[in-house]
């Protein structure tokens, strides 16, 4: 391996004199040694000379030699002074580096740049500075690595990105509990549920803030688990009852010393929905069982020899047929109301010729009216505007109201269907002079499966869903149904449908 091949070190200072001038340590030290030696020898020589001269005048050195040695000594002393100044200048940054190193060792945070040496110190300084540079780079990389997705880093980033505001707008509470069981973070909703400003919550012991033993237990237990724990907590605030669901999430990466995340959710609405669903299911099964019971029992009757007479058999067949119809109507109604309520029912909007629709519905119900000798009439205004809506669903609405009126109107009664038109809306009025609805029942007739308790109503078969469906259809069209009724005198159902719904600005003209 030749000398050329070795990587040449940087050489900012070239000649030895230049290096000496700039104070490079080896040169200064060598020159210093020479200067000290010369000064010492010169001074010794001159002192000896002075001693000889004093003891025996004329026995000292010759004048020329004395002058020369004097100059050498003075020059050497000057050189020492110069070199000392040079050295002092170099030592100052070294002293600073030493101070910073000591502080760094004592744990005081210092920027690595304070440890850099001036280039004038030559290769040692360059090597040292390179080392510092590499150390700084390693430190930066380490910081980036440790800034992984630990909660505090995430939150710190959220803070900087304005995400904390996003967390504050969430409809559920978010808490962050650290390894010392102190609250590290609480978003806006959590602060509301816990009844204190978020600023006051930070740093408080979690056990002090969360006054539910089960939640506190979950906070401890979750550290050794991989799964989320859930606790429901009901609190009474005066008459108002709130049920909160606390979900306690284990620390990220399963580290038992990590931060535990807690979410808080108001499940009151959820509970209400569950209750409503149970109620609905209960009624559905109850309602389905009734026709099913009839069909099964009458079919069984048909198989028995003791019921062979023509009249009984005919009665059985009739009940089976009518109850099968009732069952299928019930299934259809249940599907309709479910779709309407869940919102999966979509309006299939188009131009609806209301006059034609009403004529058709009255026509369809004439048979039932004739059976009870009820006078079913339709009154239309001279001009009927075209309505934007779902023809099929509006037909169901009208049919349910007319069918209802016929059912609860005694033999020989009257049912009138009237269409009223105003600038903004159409009004379909279905009026009967039937059994009427008591004030207590009026408020509830639109509820699903609600049927008034009196005999006159109970003796008529019905699903208890017709009016609920009718109202949902009216509301889907941006309208509603109102009811006025006097028991034993009759009822009037009024459907009001706006001519312009929010959905379509397109208005059909009459």
């Amino acid at each position, binding site marked *: 391996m030749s000398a050329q091949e070795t990587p040449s070190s940087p050489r900012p200072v070239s000649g030895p004199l230049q290096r000496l001038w700039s104070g490079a340590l080896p040169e200064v030290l060598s020159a210093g040694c020479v200067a000290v030696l010369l000064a010492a020898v010169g001074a010794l020589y001159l002192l000896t000379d002075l001693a000889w001269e004093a003891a025996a005048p004329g026995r000292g050195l010759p004048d020329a030699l004395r002058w020369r040695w004097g100059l050498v000594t003075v020059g050497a002393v000057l050189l020492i002074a110069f070199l000392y100044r040079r050295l002092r200048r170099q030592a100052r940054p070294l002293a600073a580096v030493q101070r910073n190193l000591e502080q760094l060792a004592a744990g005081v945070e210092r920027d690595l740049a304070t440890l850099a040496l001036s280039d004038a110190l030559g290769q040692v300084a360059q090597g040292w500075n390179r080392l510092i540079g590499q150390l700084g780079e390693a430190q930066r990389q380490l910081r980036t690595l440790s800034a992984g997705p630990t909660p505090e880093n995430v939150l710190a980033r959220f803070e900087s990105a304005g995400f904390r505001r996003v967390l504050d707008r969430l409809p559920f509470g978010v808490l962050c509990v650290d390894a010392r069981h102190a609250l590290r973070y609480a978003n806006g909703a959590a602060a509301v549920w816990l009844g204190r400003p978020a600023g006051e919550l930070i740093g408080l012991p979690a056990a002090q803030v969360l006054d539910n033993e089960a939640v506190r237990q979950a906070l401890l237990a979750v550290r050794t688990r991989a799964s989320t724990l859930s606790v429901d907590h009901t609190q009474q605030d005066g008459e108002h009852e709130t049920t909160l669901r606390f979900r306690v999430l284990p620390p990220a990466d399963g580290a038992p010393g990590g931060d535990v995340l807690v979410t808080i959710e108001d499940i009151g609405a959820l509970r209400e929905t569950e209750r409503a669903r149970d109620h609905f299911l*209960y009624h559905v*099964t*109850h309602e389905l*069982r*009734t026709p*099913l*019971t*009839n*069909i*099964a*029992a*009458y079919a*069984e*009757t048909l198989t*028995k020899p*003791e*019921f062979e007479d023509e009249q*009984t058999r005919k*009665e059985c067949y009739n*009940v089976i047929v009518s*109850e099968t119809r009732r069952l299928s109507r019930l299934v259809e109604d249940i599907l309709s109301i479910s779709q309407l309520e869940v919102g999966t029912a979509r309006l299939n909007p188009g131009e609806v010729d209301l006059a034609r629709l009403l004529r058709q519905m009255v026509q369809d119900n004439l048979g039932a009216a004739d059976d009870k000798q009820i006078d079913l009439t339709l009154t239309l205004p001279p001009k009927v505007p075209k309505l934007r809506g779902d023809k099929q669903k509006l037909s169901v609405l009208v049919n349910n109201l007319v069918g209802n009126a016929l059912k609860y109107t005694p033999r020989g009664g009257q049912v009138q269907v009237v269409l009223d038109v105003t600038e903004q809306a159409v009004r379909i009025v279905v009026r009967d002079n039937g059994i009427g609805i008591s004030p207590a029942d009026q408020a509830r007739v639109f509820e699903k499966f609600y049927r008034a*308790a*009196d*005999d006159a109503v*109970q*003796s008529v078969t019905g699903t208890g869903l017709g009016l609920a469906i009718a109202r949902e259809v009216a509301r889907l069209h941006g309208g509603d149904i109102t009811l006025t009724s006097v028991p034993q005198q009759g009822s009037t159902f009024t459907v009001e449908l706006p001519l312009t719904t929010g959905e379509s600005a397109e208005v059909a003209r009459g």
Partner: protein
Amino acid sequence: MSRILVAEDDPHILRLISLWLTRQGHTVVEARNGIAARELVQAEPVDVLVCDVNMPGLDGLSLIEGLRSTTHVRRGVVVLTNRWDHGDLRERLAAEGIQVLPKPFSPTRLSEVVAALLAAVPVEPGGREPGPT
């Protein structure tokens, strides 16, 4: 001939039970709700009461409760129900010797249960003779 009260709000079921029990030679009294049933049974005792649970006005269980300490029902009670928790109901009422038939029910089975109640020896010591008094 025994006297049987059927309390049931569904007209078809009421008619059917009435049809079956009449064919078996019983006298059947019909009630469309609990209140009417109570009035009928108080006016004249019956041998067996067949009643629905869900009825307007006065439900079947309240009707039975009100009649428990009386001697208006001489031989026994059969409860028809379409309640989903009929298992619990059956257990609870079995202690009182009340039969529970969940709907849909078999009219043949109902006839058998009624016949069994009528054939059994009266529980009450020195119980009255079956039949209208």
